[in-house]
């Protein structure tokens, strides 16, 4: 028995923070294992993957594992579900916790039979002794057995012994979603539930002067109008009444407006001139004493991405219930919130702070929402619902955002300018590299800043504006600086970030953060350097890439896409192909993409071929689905998307003004997962974003001979990039 060797597995960070085994799992007499993770289902299939990890270590059928949605006070606190870290964090914790739970239950059986643990076997939860006696987890089920801290004494399985991890177990949530059975937070129907709508200001700098609430209040079924500073909302018995009342209030409100937004048509000029905090994020010089190779040539180019919206299909939604004030008054209020937030604990802390409650007074429960792809308005909707619930204690209130508010008020992925410069030697290989970024930070998640990071809090009387987004340290993946450090073997490099200290449009984390524009810039520039040196883009990259896993994905994608033999004549006149590569966060999954595009009146991506090395893959089909989905979303960002605004407010507030890729525009996508070679698992949800954009830009240049450095790659930008 592994545990008897007293070899201790170091506790993974999530388990060290939440050491009680019973917080992670519970064996039920009915033949079910309840597993609790602090990570939440965002449509990425994480609950299925975590169920596989638990089932593997426990030796039970995966169908016996019941994943419990995160809820404060009960589930382990694992922060937000973000950064493609769920398998690394929660998976690692569950692996050790479940291995230990298995050992404890085996110990209980061994004690009962008075025989050594090492003689016992487990199959689907049934424990067998060599003499034929059997018992099971279910028969022995006792919560007290797991009411103890993890020790790390039970050794988890070795990878070659895996039977469940590494197989494509079907998603646990899809049958409900297709039946369909209510599963989304939008589908909740609590007894006596009321419907709330918030009337957002007509523009970013608007303050509410006055509102005539009587017409809205007089509607049959209207319950109350809530006003707090510039926060204006209505609660009604029926959703259709809430909508009508909101329309009336919108018409009957007087706002003072002022222009606060920069000129969208000259956005790069704003980004590079606005007040900013400048920091060198990373720097590497050749070893002292080494004679610097003489530079044969210098190159420089500047790239730009616009603000991008998460643009979830389902608008942000939450339901909240405030208990009727007991004898203790406000101090005794209990608030329950159902939300699709990425982090129930961070949201609870922020709600408590904003509402001047203690954390014990607030319970936050995760219920699935539409895919969010980062920090969207989910937390804001939870705050809206909390404010309205406090206005009508005893009745649950559901708040659903409008499409216009979802596209117009969510925190965007920030616009940025990236300037890359390089000195190269006579062959064109890079001698020194400069990467400079201008733009807002990528994190205004709840709890991240000094001000409360919830939209409604900033609109309330005395509310503080949400402070400009922060830059997490590079060791933790960075924000604007994510993937800004070149992954190639350049002898010298320098990465500088100008984080804006003003934030005209709220920005926060969108899938891959700065990795999207940084990889677009780096990999576009690599092609520009290769072209200047007359070298093949694949050869040029491989010549300056030492990491064998990085080389392997590039070689794999080149092989699979037929890079060497590709010719545009085979498809069409104005077709081209291009490559993009990155290791996400410089520490996560490796990804190389080859795009084939056709540019006639508009850019069409015909095909994406993708190779990924994510180490050990828990669920291959799920991983492929994530990579393919990420690549298709990145194609949409690259070809079509741009948040539009005038000096007052965001104007791209419908699917007409914020178009995304449609079925008939989606490219064929092939994903190849390279063998894991027993490397630890790495998240795959964000790895394709940057490489896809770069591959498309490079393919467009191959097709037209025009280097377009401004996203999205629309006809307008192509025309603007044409030489005079």
């Amino acid at each position, binding site marked *: 028995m592994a545990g008897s060797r007293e070899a201790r597995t170091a506790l993974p960070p999530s388990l060290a923070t939440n050491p009680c085994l019973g917080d992670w799992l519970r064996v039920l007499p009915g033949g079910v294992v309840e597993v609790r993770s602090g990570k939440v289902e*965002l*449509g*990425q*299939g994480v609950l299925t993957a975590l169920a596989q990890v638990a089932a593997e270590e426990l030796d039970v059928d995966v169908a016996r594992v019941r994943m419990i949605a995160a809820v404060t006070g009960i589930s382990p606190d694992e922060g937000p579900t973000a950064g493609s870290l769920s398998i690394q964090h929660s998976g690692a914790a569950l692996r050790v916790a479940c291995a230990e739970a298995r050992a404890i239950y085996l110990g209980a059986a061994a004690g009962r039979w008075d025989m050594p643990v090492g003689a016992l076997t487990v199959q689907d939860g049934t424990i067998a002794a060599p003499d034929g006696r059997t018992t099971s987890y279910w028969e022995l089920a006792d919560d007290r057995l797991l009411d103890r801290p993890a020790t790390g004494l039970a050794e988890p399985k070795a990878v070659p012994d895996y039977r469940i991890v590494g197989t*494509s177990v*079907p*998603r646990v*949530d*899809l*049958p409900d*979603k*297709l*039946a*369909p059975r*209510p*599963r*989304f937070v*939008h*589908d909740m*129907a609590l007894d006596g539930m009321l*419907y709330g709508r918030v009337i957002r200001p007509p523009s970013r700098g608007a303050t509410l002067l006055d509102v005539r609430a009587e017409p809205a209040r007089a509607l049959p079924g209207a319950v109350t109008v809530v006003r707090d500073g510039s926060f204006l909302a209505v609660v009604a018995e*029926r*959703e*259709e009444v809430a909508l*009508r009342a909101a329309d009336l209030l919108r018409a009957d409100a007087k706002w003072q407006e002022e222009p606060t937004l920069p000129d969208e048509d000259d956005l790069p000029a704003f980004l590079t001139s606005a007040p900013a905090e400048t920091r060198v994020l990373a720097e590497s010089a050749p070893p002292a004493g080494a004679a610097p190779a003489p530079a044969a040539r210098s190159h420089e180019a500047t790239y730009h991405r616009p603000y991008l919206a998460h*643009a*979830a*299909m*389902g*608008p942000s939604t939450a339901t909240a219930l405030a208990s009727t004030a007991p004898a203790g008054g406000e101090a005794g209020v209990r608030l329950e919130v159902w939300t699709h937030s990425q982090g129930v604990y961070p949201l609870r802390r922020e709600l408590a702070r904003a509402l001047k409650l203690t954390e014990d007074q607030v319970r936050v429960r995760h219920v*699935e*929402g*539409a*895919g969010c*792809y980062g920090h969207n308005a989910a937390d804001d909707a939870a705050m809206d619902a909390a404010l309205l619930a406090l206005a009508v204690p005893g009745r649950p209130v559901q708040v*659903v955002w*409008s*499409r216009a508010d979802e596209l117009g008020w969510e925190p965007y992925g920030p616009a940025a300018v990236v300037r890359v410069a390089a000195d190269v030697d006579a062959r064109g290989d890079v001698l020194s590299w400069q990467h400079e970024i201008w733009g807002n930070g990528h994190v205004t998640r709840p709890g991240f800043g000094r001000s409360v990071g919830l939209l409604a809090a900033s609109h309330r009387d005395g509310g503080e504006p949400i402070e400009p987004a922060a830059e997490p340290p590079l060791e933790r993946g960075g924000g604007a600086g994510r993937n800004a450090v070149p992954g190639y073997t350049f002898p010298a490099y320098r990465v500088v970030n100008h984080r804006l200290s003003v934030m005209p449009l709220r920005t926060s984390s969108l899938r891959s953060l700065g990795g999207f524009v940084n990889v677009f810039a780096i990999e576009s520039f690599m092609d520009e350097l290769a072209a200047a040196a007359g070298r093949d883009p694949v050869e040029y990259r491989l010549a300056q890439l030492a990491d064998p896993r990085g080389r392997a994905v590039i070689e794999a994608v080149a092989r699979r896409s037929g890079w060497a033999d590709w010719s545009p004549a085979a498809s069409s006149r104005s077709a081209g192909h291009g490559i993009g590569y990155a290791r996400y966060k410089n520490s996560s999954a490796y990804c190389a993409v080859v795009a084939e595009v056709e540019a006639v009146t508009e850019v069409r991506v015909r095909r994406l071929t993708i190779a990924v090395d994510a180490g050990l893959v828990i669920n291959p*089909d*799920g991983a492929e*689905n*994530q990579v*393919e*989905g*990420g*690549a*298709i*979303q990145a194609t*949409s960002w690259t070809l079509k998307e741009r948040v539009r605004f005038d000096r007052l407010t965001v104007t791209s507030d*419908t*699917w*007409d003004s914020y178009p*995304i*890729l*449609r*079925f*008939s525009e*989606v490219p*064929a*996508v092939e994903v190849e997962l390279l063998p894991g070679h027993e490397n630890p698992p790495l998240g795959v949800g964000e790895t394709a974003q940057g490489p896809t954009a770069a591959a498309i830009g490079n393919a467009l240049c191959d097709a037209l001979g025009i280097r377009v450095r401004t996203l999205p790659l629309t006809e307008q930008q192509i025309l603007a990039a044409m030489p005079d």
Partner: protein
Amino acid sequence: MPDTDPMRVTVLVNGQREEVRTERDTALLYVLRNHLGLTGTRFGCGLGLCGACLVLIDGRPAYSCDTPMWAVEDRDVTTVEGLGVSGRPHPAAQAIIDGQAAQCGYCISGVVISAAGLLAVNDDPSEDEVRAALDRNLCRCGAQNRIVRAVLAAASSLRASRDSG
């Protein structure tokens, strides 16, 4: 005889005559979701631009988010809940499960409705015809190619069951 109660609205949903109390200009979507508890039909945009709210009206896909109740009186409304046969999901829904052709699944009811509308009139669609029929549906997760393959698989299973029946 004219109905004297302006708040009494009737509608035929999934073969059942339903009577609800709401204003006559209320969108069908809210009646389905809140009054009748048919939450498979989803709010996405309220403008008929994303397809999350699709239902079949007299057999053809229609946006329930901007269809007022007065427009569906005496019409036959089928929601995604009403598509299945004897407790089994519609072949398109089953093919989506079989092909793991969804990520968050928020758009998927509308997709199933579009697919059902297409397969009812064309049980041997080409891939381009499937994509064209699904162009009224938006999917943000990037599951489109899997969905298209699932609809083609559903078409083929429908043809097989017809040929064997």
